Every structure is written in C-alpha cells, then in structure tokens.
C-alpha cells in the first residue's frame, strides 16, 4: 500500500521533474524513487494489513511480487540511458508511465476485490499501450501500440463481462465472498458462474500472453522500443501471472476441479506454441517474445499444480525469469542499436568484441533455458516439483520436452556470440548499464547456487 501511494506521488513528481532543462537528472531521480519504493515495500514484509474496507491487502504474497516488479524496473531503467542522451522530449512521461504501470501492477498483486483487479489491470495496460507506441515516428512502434491497444481493450471487455457474470452469480466482488458462494453452489449447475470464470480466464490468459491468446505478443514486442519490451515481458507478465494465481487460489480454489482441465490445456498449448514458435524465429527480439510466451506456460504450471509449494515456486521463477530477461533485452538493446538489427546475426562474434556482454548474455540464456548454476534451473525445478507432487506427470513430460526445445533456440544466441566471426566493432556500454548487467549476473548465479535464500519467502 505504501508503495502504491509512493509510486503514484513519485510518478506525478517525475512529470514535473521533466520540465527541467536537463534530462540527465531524470534517471537518477527515478532510480531514487524506485529504491525508496522498494524500501517502503519491504517494510510491509510479514505485516499483513488490509485497506479500503478490505479491497486491498498487503501480505507476503503481494509484497514478494511487488518487490520483484520494483526490482525489475530498477534494473530495466539503466538501459534507457541512450534515451536520456538523445534528450527525448517525452522521456519524463515515459518514466512516469512506467511508474504508473508499476502502481497498476502492485494493485494487481494485492487485490482482494475484483474492482481493484480491474483498475490495476487497466492502469497497467493503458500505460503500456502508450509505452508501446513511444517511438512515435516509427511505424512499427505505432502498429505495435495500436495492436496492443485494440487487443488489450477487447480482452478487457471480456474480463469485465466475466466479472459482471460472476457478480450476477455470486453477488460479490470480494474474492472471499466469491469463494464462499462458488463452493456453496454447485458450479456445474451454474452457467453464469462457469461462463464468468471462463471469460475472466480468457481475459487474463491474454494479459499474460498465454496461448491461444498469445498472438499479439511477438508483434507488440517487436514493435515496442527494446527497453520497454523488457518491461512488458517482465513486470507486466509477473503482475499478470500473480494476479491470475491469486484469483484462482483465493476465489476459485474451491472449484479447482472445474477449471483445472482448461488451465492444463492452456498450459500445454502455451508451452508448445511458445517453444516451437521461438525455434522458427530469426529475430532475437521475436525469439524473446516467443520465449516469454513459453515462460508464461511454465509459470502457469504453478497454477495447475496449485499446492503450498507453487506460490514459492512462482515467486522464485518470476524473479529468475525477470532477471534473465532484463539482461537479455538490455544487451539486445545495445547490440540492436549498434548493429542496426535485432537478428541473431547481429550477435555474431560478440564474444570477441564484447566479452562481458557476451558472458552476461550467456548466463541469461542459460538461466532462461534452465541450466544449472543459474536461477532459471531452480525456478523450473521448483515449478516441476510442485506439479509432480500433484501427480501431473504428463504435463511435466511435455514441459521437459519443451525445455529441451528451448535450449535449442537459446543456444543459437550463444553460438552466434562465441562461434561465429565478428562482424562489428566493439560496442560501447556505459558504466551504469555495465554495473547493472554485472549485478544481474551475480543475482542469477546467486539464485542458482544458493537457491535457499529465495525459495521459501512466502
């Protein structure tokens, strides 16, 4: 809650900071804001509280995911340095939008009432629509923005209709009330409830970019400026999946049997489409987009398993995934800017020209692929364990096979970097970004060597 208020105020303040002559001051200010917000979030740790007549509550679940999101933003921002240098006239606005989106995200992870969920989703989505189009002169960015907007608001409508039906069926927006009503009445005989649940499910599936409503992801990711793409694929996705999990556990935990087959089907489909789609890409950015789809699938395994392990697994995986993805996108931004292309070929010989970038990228890719020594491995291990405890062997077999497919496309980057000849010059990276990249690697390896530090937080 404190973080919501703080970030809102900071967002507004930041808009006014933007009126200063020099844009250089923006980045430190925003980083400071985020650090303060992160600190404030941590104060709520182990101190569950609820606000606004229980419409919003902070518990360790929400604090954990809030921390992941704020931290991710903190890590993403340094890569936007080139925008600062370019004296982008709307930079303050974009930063503020990121902060506002973060507010929306925090609402999405700490809601107790569907109203807050809806408002959170919208605050986040609307900010992201603009962010997607922030490269105003670039037709690709325009298109991404438009697609995201049309699709996003369309699915918002679907979520809303679902919420309305749920309200009609249960008479409540509070998760606890819905849960009570859902268990009281036999869901199989209540078409209103089932329909509502299905529609909400569809909408949220879209928001996290899971199949079969994933089709916007590659396009939007490709068109959006890279730094913001990394925000989308980490913060937005984290918020979405956490909200999804909370919805399913707090409101529909009692009717698990009703939605379980659907969610499993979505998970499997997402895994297949994400991974196989990624294989076919030649553009690194699109590959990362598909990889984000596939990771949505892995994250959804937590939903299908749905036991006391899965929450922790979800948090761990989100963090590991976010860190690796930020590193990947951060490097992609530098490489893309310097070599004028987002394709794999742009990475050729990076190991020779920029050993540090190549090394960080390698660690990020290994983490995304789930190879040990990185956080991604334990993320996958925990998720799979949670599902296996539930006895879902077939799901895990699919997931394991798809992880193997994942290795194929993640390693293409590594191969390009180390085993092909260099085509470009050394790429200059500013110190702040270098520092960030190193911290990302340290964090990833830390998660991969002593996972115990992060694995039992909730």
């Amino acid at each position, binding site marked *: 809650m404190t973080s919501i208020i703080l970030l809102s105020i900071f967002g*507004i303040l930041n*808009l*006014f900071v933007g009126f200063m002559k020099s844009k250089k001051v923006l980045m430190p200010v925003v980083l400071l804001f985020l650090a303060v917000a992160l600190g404030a979030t941590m104060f709520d740790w182990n101190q569950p509280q609820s606000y606004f007549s229980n419409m919003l509550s902070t518990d360790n679940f929400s604090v954990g995911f809030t921390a992941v999101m704020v931290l991710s933003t903190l890590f993403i921002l340094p890569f936007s340095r080139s925008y600062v240098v370019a004296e982008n006239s709307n930079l303050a606005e974009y930063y503020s939008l990121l902060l506002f989106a973060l507010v929306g995200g925090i609402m999405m992870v700490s809601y107790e009432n569907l109203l807050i969920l809806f408002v959170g989703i919208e605050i986040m989505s609307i900010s992201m629509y603009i962010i997607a189009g922030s490269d105003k002169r670039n037709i690709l960015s325009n298109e991404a923005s438009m697609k995201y907007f049309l699709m996003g608001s369309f699915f918002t409508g679907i979520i809303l209709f679902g919420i309305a039906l749920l309200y009609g069926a249960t008479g409540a927006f509070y998760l606890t009330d819905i849960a009570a009503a859902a268990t009281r009445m036999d869901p199989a005989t209540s078409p209103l409830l089932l329909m509502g649940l299905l529609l909400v499910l569809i909408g949220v599936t879209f928001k996290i970019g899971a199949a079969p409503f994933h089709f916007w992801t590659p396009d939007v990711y490709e068109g959006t400026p890279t730094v913001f793409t990394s925000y989308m694929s980490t913060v937005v996705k984290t918020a979405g999946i956490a909200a999804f999990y909370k919805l399913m556990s707090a409101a529909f935990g009692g009717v698990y049997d009703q939605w379980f087959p659907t969610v499993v089907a979505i998970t499997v489909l997402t895994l297949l489409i994400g991974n196989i789609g990624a294989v076919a890409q030649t553009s690194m950015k699109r590959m990362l987009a598909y990889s984000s789809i596939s990771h949505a699938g892995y994250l959804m395994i937590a939903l299908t398993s749905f036991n006391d392990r899965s929450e922790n697994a979800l948090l761990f995986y989100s963090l590991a995934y976010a860190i690796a993805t930020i590193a990947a996108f951060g490097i992609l931004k530098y490489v893309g800017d310097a070599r004028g292309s987002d394709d794999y070929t742009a990475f050729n010989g990076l190991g020779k020209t920029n050993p540090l970038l190549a090394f960080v990228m390698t660690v990020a890719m290994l983490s995304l692929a789930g190879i040990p020594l990185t956080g991604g491995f334990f993320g996958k291990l925990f998720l799979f364990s949670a599902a296996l405890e539930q006895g879902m062997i077939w799901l895990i077999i699919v997931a394991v096979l798809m992880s193997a497919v994942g290795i194929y496309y993640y390693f293409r980057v590594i191969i390009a970097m180390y085993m092909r000849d260099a085509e470009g010059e050394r790429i200059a990276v500013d110190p702040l970004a270098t520092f960030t990249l190193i911290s990302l690697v340290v964090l990833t390896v830390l998660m991969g060597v002593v996972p115990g530090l992060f694995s039992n937080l909730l």
Partner: protein
Amino acid sequence: METTAPAQYLPADYLPIVIQFVAALGFVIFSMVVTHLIGPKRKSAVKHASWECGIESKGDARAPISIKYFLIAILFVLFDVEVIFLYPWAVNFRALGLDGFVWMLMFMGLLLTGFFYVIRKGVLKWE
C-alpha cells in the same frame, strides 16, 4: 428540504420525454420534408462544388488539422469524466461531511496537478 418528486418512478413516468422527443422529431422532419418538396431544384456542377470563396476548390477538405484540437478533445474526455465523479459527491455533500470534503480535496488536488501539468506541457498554448 421538502421533496415534491413522486415517491416512485415507473418506466411510464418517462413517457413525457418520449412525447417531447416525438414532437421535436416531428417538427424537424416536417420542416425538412416540406422544404425538400417545395424548394426549387436546379443542378449545376459549379454550384455543387465546395465553396471556397469562389476559388477552385483543391484537395479533400477532410485533411488532418492541428493536433491541438485532438488534445483538447482528449483532455475533455478525461476531465469530464472526473467532473462526473463530482456530481454524486456534490449531491450527498452534507451527508458525507468533512471526510467527504477532504477526500474530494485530494481528488481535486490530483485533478489540478494534472491540469497544471497539462498547462506546463504547453497543450493549451495556441499560436
């Protein structure tokens, strides 16, 4: 405060609005039809061209216009909705008391901040 409004509304209570609507529509249709019927009709290519002070008209009139107008429209949508939120508050102002006032002050504060931002941003600067 004495209330003279009827105690209960039924859909039929809104019938007068329909009557008024029908009356107004009738008047409009009547006048348009009558003028259509009794007015003269002489066609000519020059007359049917768009009027541009007698100069030959060029291009499509529906060309993009200054972005400022769009900004005004967008701002309106936002502010108007905020204003709508004030109506229920205003009506129940006395019931809500000081708390309501303080909340609304915060709301207004945010609104004004946004407003101030928009002005500083130069959205309302017309050359």
